[in-house]
């Protein structure tokens, strides 16, 4: 297998799915009509409701949905099950379910006056669905914040060439906000300054860090050596001893080194290969604190001051890295065939049945929640219904915008999969960065490998960090909305932000990374199942054939409920018996898993009843009942 084959297979599958399935559903089931007035035209207010060109919206929607999710998932899944199952699920998932969810959520919102999915669920299913959805969303955000904080802290502590680029990202973000909104400078000029400086800071992080033998030595580089010295100084706080110790039965934690040629993992400064223990050093805590401060600024300052410009720069960095890597991937089989060939195993077998005392990662249902956003994502449906749906100029733009952006995001996930598959060594993020570094050598020569890998790490960090800062922003308002009435102090944005961060850091310190990610994936896919459920109920109410949404709903619903239980079981069997703080974290995650399970059951039951109600009621009566 090589990169070219992935490009060819993906191009054929996406072409067939879009032209022969998606278009047919759009024309025969939804019956999108260019003559029907959209909410953007009916309620135009110049801000939220504004008819916008489909090309602009396609770019806007793609930018809104693409970032960390489609990249982290395939990397983790490829390491657990090999590249072949990941590739299959990415292509089958997006063709049969992913675009369905994104496109249908937009069209349901368009046909319901531009209302959000939660408002539509309140009207179509039951009033309590909306309240339950808020609870669900808070814990969903908590899980993803924990998963992302964990992976970023480990990366910053382990790679001295990465922090400089991230610090510059923050500085350039604040500067860009000032230049754009206060000094009113030209967007292109601002972009040129801040993006070039940030990318240069990332690329030159490892500058000079090669010793006389040609090996990577971070104590040699002028930038990386400062970080190495700083980390050592911080670690002296505890005398170089671990502040706490955790274990990861799946070895997916970024601090666990990749196995060598004989399949054995080496003992490192933070990982004990004999016991499987992972040390949490003070430097890890410092970088976690650094990320919290970064996110705090993003969550509490006006969005134009920090979060938005940081995201803007981040998107450029991601696009440049991924775009150049994609060109490298296409050219590799012709220019450097050795680079384009896959080094990762096609299939890594995992036991289908649970073994006592061991983590259990069966392909079904765990693959389907580990790869979340690249195939299907519930969050897209929410974003689509509150943003894009209110700006569609014509109903017929719904498919190219919603479906098209989802298929495009899928290619991002495929590229992440290609990058990890061609890299021979490294853990999840390390494998991705090494893959990016290899692909960039196709364009810039072998000498660029060191800098390309640093850019890969930097891009990975940026992708994850830009989402995390927004997560805390959304978490604080969700917490205020959800619990603010019962505890008015939570309406204070600083209190709600700090509360969210404390809960998150507790999960990061006591939890196990891969379970956090898989629980997030399960919550994300459950949300997808719930959005598909709303679509199915709406189709039933409209007396349209709901099959194209019903079957994906059932598959995602059953799969994600099962995955939630498997993750809870893994936590109970592998982490709880160890006792201490890790057990406390495991119990917290088990409780969250069960809470998600119960809320999903309640929404599912309400959805089933609504479906039955609309099945028995003639169309007009059904509409009246809904009102």
């Amino acid at each position, binding site marked *: 297998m090589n990169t070219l084959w992935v490009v060819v297979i993906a191009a054929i599958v996406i072409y067939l799915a879009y032209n022969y399935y998606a278009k047919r559903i759009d024309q025969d089931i939804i019956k999108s009509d260019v003559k029907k007035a959209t909410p953007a035209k009916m309620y135009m207010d110049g801000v939220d409701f504004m008819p*916008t060109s489909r090309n602009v919206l396609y770019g806007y929607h793609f930018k809104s949905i693409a970032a960390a999710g489609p990249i982290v998932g395939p990397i983790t899944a490829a390491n657990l099950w090999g590249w072949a199952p990941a590739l299959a699920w990415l292509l089958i998932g997006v063709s049969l379910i992913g675009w369905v969810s994104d496109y249908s959520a937009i069209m349901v919102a368009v046909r319901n006056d531009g209302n*959000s999915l939660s408002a539509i669920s309140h009207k179509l299913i039951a009033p309590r669905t909306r309240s339950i959805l808020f609870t669900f969303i808070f814990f969903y955000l908590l899980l993803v914040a924990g998963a992302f904080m964990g992976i970023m802290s480990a990366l910053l502590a382990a790679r001295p060439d990465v922090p400089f680029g991230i610090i510059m990202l923050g500085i350039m973000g604040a500067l860009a906000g000032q230049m754009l909104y206060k000094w009113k400078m030209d967007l292109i000029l601002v972009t040129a300054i801040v993006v070039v400086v940030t990318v240069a800071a990332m690329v030159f992080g490892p500058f000079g860090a090669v010793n006389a033998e040609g090996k990577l030595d971070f104590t040699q580089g002028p930038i990386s050596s400062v970080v190495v010295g700083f980390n050592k100084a911080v670690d002296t706080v505890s005398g170089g001893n671990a502040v706490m110790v955790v274990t990861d039965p799946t070895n997916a934690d970024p601090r666990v080194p990749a196995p060598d040629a004989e399949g054995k993992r080496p003992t490192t400064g933070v990982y004990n290969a004999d016991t499987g223990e992972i040390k949490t050093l003070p430097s890890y805590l410092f970088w976690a604190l650094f990320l919290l401060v970064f996110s705090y600024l993003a969550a509490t300052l006006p969005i134009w001051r920090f979060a938005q410009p940081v995201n803007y720069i981040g998107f450029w960095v991601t696009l440049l890295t991924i775009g150049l890597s994609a060109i490298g991937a296409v050219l590799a089989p012709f220019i450097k065939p050795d680079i384009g060939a896959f080094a990762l195993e096609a299939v890594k077998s995992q036991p289908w049945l649970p073994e006592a005392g061991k983590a259990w990662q069966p392909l079904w249902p765990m693959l389907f929640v580990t790869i979340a956003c690249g195939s299907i994502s519930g969050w897209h449906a929410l974003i689509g219904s509150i943003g894009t749906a209110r700006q569609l100029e014509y109903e017929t733009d719904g498919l190219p915008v919603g479906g098209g952006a989802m298929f495009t995001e899928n290619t991002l996930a495929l590229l992440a999969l290609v990058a990890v598959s061609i890299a021979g060594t490294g853990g999840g993020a390390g494998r991705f960065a090494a893959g990016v570094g290899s692909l960039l050598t196709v364009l810039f020569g072998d000498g660029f490998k060191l800098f390309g890998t640093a850019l890969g790490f930097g891009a990975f960090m940026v992708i994850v960090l830009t989402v995390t800062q927004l997560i805390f922003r959304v978490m604080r308002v969700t917490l205020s909305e959800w619990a603010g009435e019962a505890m008015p102090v939570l309406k204070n944005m600083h209190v709600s932000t700090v509360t969210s961060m404390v809960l998150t850091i507790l999960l990061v310190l006591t939890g196990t990374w891969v379970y956090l990610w898989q629980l997030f994936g399960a919550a994300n896919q459950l949300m997808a199942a719930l959005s598909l459920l709303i679509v199915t109920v709406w189709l039933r109410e409209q007396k349209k054939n709901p099959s194209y949404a019903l079957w994906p709903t059932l598959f995602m619903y059953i799969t994600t409920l099962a995955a939630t239980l498997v993750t809870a079981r893994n936590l109970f069997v592998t982490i709880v018996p160890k006792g201490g703080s890790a057990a406390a974290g495991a119990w917290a995650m088990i409780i969250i898993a069960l809470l998600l399970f119960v809320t999903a059951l309640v929404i599912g039951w309400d959805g089933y009843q609504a479906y039955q109600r609309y099945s028995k009621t003639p169309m007009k009566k059904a509409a009246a009942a809904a009102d």
Partner: protein
Amino acid sequence: MKSSQTQTENKPSRWQAVREFLYGMFGMEIAEHAMEMRASLESIFMLGTVGDMLGVPVLPPYYSLRLLPYLVPHISTWKRRVLREREFSDEHDYHLDGL
């Protein structure tokens, strides 16, 4: 049919489509936020000047009437925006991108 024709007539060239796509990806969010800030300032101004339309008398009607000719073009969109039921997720400030 007319709408269909209009859509066909307005079909942008390929280069124009690429430019629009890039604007949507990079510029639209910033432009949208600038518009939101302006709209929120305008909403406060409108509330102060013709707020009595919504039952919030702030300015004496004499001044409101003198300003009315300048405000009339904005009244319908302003009322539409202010009177629509909103939830926090409607605000672009709280949109979570990238998942």
